[in-house]
């Protein structure tokens, strides 16, 4: 069930959505599409408006402006209970006074599906989320992970047109969260349900999504496949929010055959791959991800983006070594090296090197320029 990113009509189209609570603008202007069967994440820090967008799609919050179109049908003014969507809450929001079975059957009952037809559907769904024998239990008798699976089954059993998930894994502990991620992704691939997933966890968004919508302050900063938003962030915010990087402010020197040369603070010149839209004299931000910096023995030759440095901090974190190295001009860089490599001692003289392709150049004066692309 690979998503048809182009061609087919979108399963969900949101355009120009806006919502203010009093003087606080929660969502300024959000537009996005989800293709049928797509797993789309809304990623951003808390308070960026991602949950409000989701609640507007669900119908729990009324937008001030904008349009929500579900499979070609404008549902902006359709009441919540007629939208036929699924919603999974961070708090699970199970009905504490009903058994697991009755919780899952709730949506079917509201649609007039009787006991005879409903029971096998509920049982099949409980089987699918691996809760088969627990139908007679009450929610309080289940663990957090089991409760979240009941919530998933409850939302999916009515075969919703789109499943909305509001930070569904945030209340689970780390191990269980990893397990549920895999389970959620498999479920989505198996059922082919379009899913809109809200999270503040960038790793979660990258792992699960077909595409990621990065949001900040009520606006969309960038929409793209996980590799795109990670490797080619459109704005400084996206670069900072996804992964750890070293940032320099600088000015573009005349562009020559080697690529774009950027004079950054502290008298260094960094070579970056050419990119449209850059012109000499422009103020830019330069980001180099910590895992893209190589630490080589001091003295090794080569051209471009090679700087003598000294190791000032080292820590081992299992999958990787974390280093802080200090350049000759005093500037410190964070570097991540593969965990299998030999550790470098504190005080060792090294060369910090990176390729022009690893340099992310971001125009400083155009925060919204990255827009939706």
């Amino acid at each position: 069930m690979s998503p048809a990113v182009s061609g087919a009509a979108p399963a969900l189209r949101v355009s120009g959505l806006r919502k203010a609570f009093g003087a606080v603008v929660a969502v300024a202007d959000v537009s996005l599409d989800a293709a049928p069967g797509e797993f789309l994440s809304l990623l951003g820090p808390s308070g960026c408006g991602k949950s409000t967008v989701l609640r507007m799609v669900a119908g729990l919050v009324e937008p001030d402006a904008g349009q929500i179109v579900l499979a070609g049908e404008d549902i902006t003014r359709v009441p919540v209970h007629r939208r036929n969507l699924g919603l999974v809450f961070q708090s699970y929001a199970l009905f504490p006074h009903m058994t697991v079975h009755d919780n899952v059957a709730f949506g079917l009952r509201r649609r007039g599906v009787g006991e005879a037809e409903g029971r096998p559907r509920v049982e099949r769904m409980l089987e699918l989320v691996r809760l088969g024998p627990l139908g007679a239990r009450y929610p309080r008798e289940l663990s957090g992970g089991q409760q979240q699976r009941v919530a998933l089954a409850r939302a999916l059993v009515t075969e919703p047109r789109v499943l909305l998930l509001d930070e569904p894994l945030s209340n689970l502990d780390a191990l269980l969260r990893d397990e549920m991620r895999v389970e959620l992704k498999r479920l989505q691939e198996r059922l082919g349900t379009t899913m809109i997933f809200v999270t503040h966890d960038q790793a979660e968004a990258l792992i699960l999504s077909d595409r990621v919508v990065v949001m900040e302050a009520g606006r969309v900063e960038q929409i793209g496949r996980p590799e795109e938003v990670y490797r080619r962030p459109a704005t400084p915010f996206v670069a900072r929010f996804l992964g750890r990087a070293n940032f320099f402010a600088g000015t573009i020197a005349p562009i020559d055959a080697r690529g774009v040369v950027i004079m950054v603070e502290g008298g260094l010149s960094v070579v970056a791959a050419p990119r449209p839209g850059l012109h000499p004299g422009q103020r830019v931000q330069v980001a180099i991800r910590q895992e893209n910096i190589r630490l080589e023995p001091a003295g090794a030759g080569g051209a471009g983006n090679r700087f003598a440095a000294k190791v000032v901090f080292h820590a081992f974190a299992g999958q990787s070594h974390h280093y802080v190295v200090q350049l000759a001009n005093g500037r410190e860089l964070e570097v991540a090296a593969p965990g299998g490599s030999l550790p470098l001692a504190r005080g060792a003289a090294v060369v910090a090197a990176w390729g022009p392709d690893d340099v992310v150049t971001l125009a400083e004066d155009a925060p919204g320029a990255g827009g939706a692309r």
Partner: protein
Amino acid sequence: MKSGRGLGLLLPAALLLLVAFVLPVGMLVPTSFRPYVPLVGITSGFTAGYYTRLVTDSYYLEIIGRTLALGLTVTLATLLIGYPLAYFLARTRSQWRNWLTLLVVFPLYLNLVVRTFGWIALLAQNGLVNQALQTLGVVNEPVKLLFNFAGLMIALTHIFLPFMVLVLIGPIQNIPRDVEDAARVLGASWGSTFLRVTLPLSMPGILSGSILVFVLTISALVTPRLLGGPTYQVMSTLIFDEFLQRLNWPAGSAAALLLTLMVLTLVFLSGILARRTGARA
């Protein structure tokens, strides 16, 4: 030891209960079986006559029935008026919330006798209510609202409404909004969500509020006495008269013990009911 310390914390309350409740009520038991002879007083014989009279004599049965009916209607009325109010106060994000809650509680700060006299002024033959009804042409003759069931019910409902609202607010606030939202997203209309989710989850509050108002109503003395007059009796005014007007302590004791028994039975039954509904919530 944990349990030892727990018992220590219970001790002051247990002592108070013993001295102020169990002992006095216990002392009523022997009194209630003594024959009372007019002009002589309490004699040393034994009789169960005051009890049999209470449960067989139509005069007393009517008073008991009236007391229970009053308790039931006042409880129902405070519930019907109080629930929407409590729901609003529990869910509103208005900055006026604390002031509104204060407004609900405010009547409790006024003296009960003062409030009851207020109701007499309102409900009398030529009181405000009757004047308004006649001016509006709703009725031609003044409606009798004093010294009868209607007057007592109106006044007691007003007096005990704050208790119902205060008890309901907490349990309603404890119902997560997400749970109601989940029901609506799953296709339940507003009414269906209320009936299937909000109301069942409010049951603990409804139960304790109802018990409280019912018990307060059937044991209320001042309001029934002032609004019911000397002839329209409920159990508490009957007990009062037996003890202090007729000086028939044995008859008063028997009635008092019956009222106590009714209250205890009710509290016990509600405890079972609460455990049964609470077990699932």
